[in-house]
C-alpha cells in the first residue's frame, strides 16, 4: 500500500501542471483564463478534493504573482449577479470543491506582471492542515469549463 502511494506520488509530481497531494487536499485542473492586459482582476478555476479523513479548512490564498487573492462565489438569481466572498472554505473528507465559471472562483487581484498563455503561476492555499501549493496555467479565455482532465 505504501509502495503504491509513493509511486502514485512520484507519478503525480511529474505532471506539468502541478496536481499537488499534500495533507488531505489534492488540487487539479487549476487554470486562469487569459484576461485583457488592462484587467486588474482575474479569475482562477480549479478542483480541490479532500482525500483525507478529516475536514480541511482553507483560510487564505496567496501568490507572489498577485497582490491579493480571495475566494468568491458568483450567485445569479433572477438575472441579478452578485459575488459572495468566502473568507474560509471547509471541505469535508471525500468531498471536493469545484471552482468554475458562474460559481466559486479565486479572485486574483492586481496581477504583478503581464500574463500570457502557458504561463505557470504558483498559488498557495493556507489550510488548517498546512500550506498547499499548486501551479495554475494561463490558458486562452474560452467558455470550455472542462479543464479538470487537461494537463
Amino acid at each position: 500500500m505504501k509502495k503504491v502511494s509513493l509511486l502514485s506520488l512520484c507519478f503525480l509530481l511529474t505532471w506539468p501542471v502541478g496536481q499537488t497531494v499534500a495533507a488531505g487536499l489534492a488540487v487539479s485542473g487549476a487554470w486562469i483564463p487569459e484576461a485583457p492586459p488592462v484587467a486588474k482582476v482575474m479569475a482562477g478555476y480549479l478542483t480541490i478534493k479532500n482525500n483525507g479523513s478529516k475536514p480541511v479548512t482553507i483560510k487564505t490564498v496567496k501568490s507572489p504573482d498577485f497582490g491579493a487573492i480571495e475566494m468568491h462565489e458568483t450567485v445569479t438569481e433572477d438575472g441579478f449577479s452578485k459575488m459572495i466572498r468566502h473568507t474560509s472554505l471547509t471541505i469535508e473528507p471525500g468531498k471536493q470543491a469545484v471552482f468554475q465559471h458562474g460559481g466559486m472562483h479565486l479572485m486574483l487581484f492586481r496581477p504583478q506582471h503581464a500574463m500570457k498563455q502557458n504561463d505557470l503561476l504558483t498559488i498557495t492555499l493556507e489550510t488548517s492542515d498546512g500550506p498547499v501549493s499548486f501551479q495554475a496555467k494561463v490558458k486562452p479565455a474560452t467558455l470550455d469549463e472542462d479543464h479538470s482532465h487537461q494537463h
Partner: protein
Amino acid sequence: MNSDKTTSLPFVLLLLGITLVGLLAGLFAWKTFSSPTTTAQAMPPDVANHYIPDGRPVVGIQMTDQDGQPFTEARFKGKWSFLFFGFTHCPDVCPTTLLILKTVWDKLPAEARQAPEPQMIFVSVDPERDTPALLKSYTHFYNPEFMGMTGPADKLDILTTQVGALYGYEDGDKEGEYTVNHSAQIVLIDPKGRFRAVFTTPHQVDEIVNGFVAIRDYYAKHQESRK
C-alpha cells in the same frame, strides 16, 4: 299559389340548410385563409421567449463611448444593438458574458451580420474605475468589433431603468477594492431604438444566435413598418 311555395316546410328547411352550409363554408374559409402570423400566439418560440411586442423607445441617453465621444439614442438607429452591463474589475461573469457574445458574433449567419452590422456594447456600471480608454482596451481583447461605454450614475440610471437593468455597489475592502452587483441579462435594441428583446441567464450561445435570427425575421415582417 306563390305563398304556398314560399312558406312550405320543405322550402324553409332548404333555406335553413343553405344558410347553415353558407355559415360553415365561411367559417372554414376564415380559418384556412386568415394569416396565422397576425396573432401573438403564432410567434415562434425562439421569438416569443425574448420578444417585447410593445417595445418602447429608449430615450434621453447621454453616455460616453470608448473613444470619449457622446453616445445618444441616435446611435441606436438603423442597426440592432446588444447591450450588457458589467465592470472590468469583474473576474467571472463579465468575461464570461463577453466570451458568450464573441461566440454569438462568430456564429451569426452572414445575413444577420450584414451592413448595418449589429453593435455589441458593454456598458460599465463602474465609471469611477472604468474610463473610456480602459473600456476600449478591455472589450477589444475579446473582440475589436465590440464597444464599451459608460457614464456617471445619473446618466447610467437613465439607461438602466429603461431596460430593466439593476446595479449596486458593495463596500470596499481595506485595499479599496469593491465589487459591483449587476443585472446579467443581455438586452436587444431594435433599429428604431426601441427596447425589443431580453436574453436572460443562464446564457446559451445557440439560444442567443437562433433567437436573434428569428427576432430579426419576425421584426422585419411585423414591426418595421410601424411607427
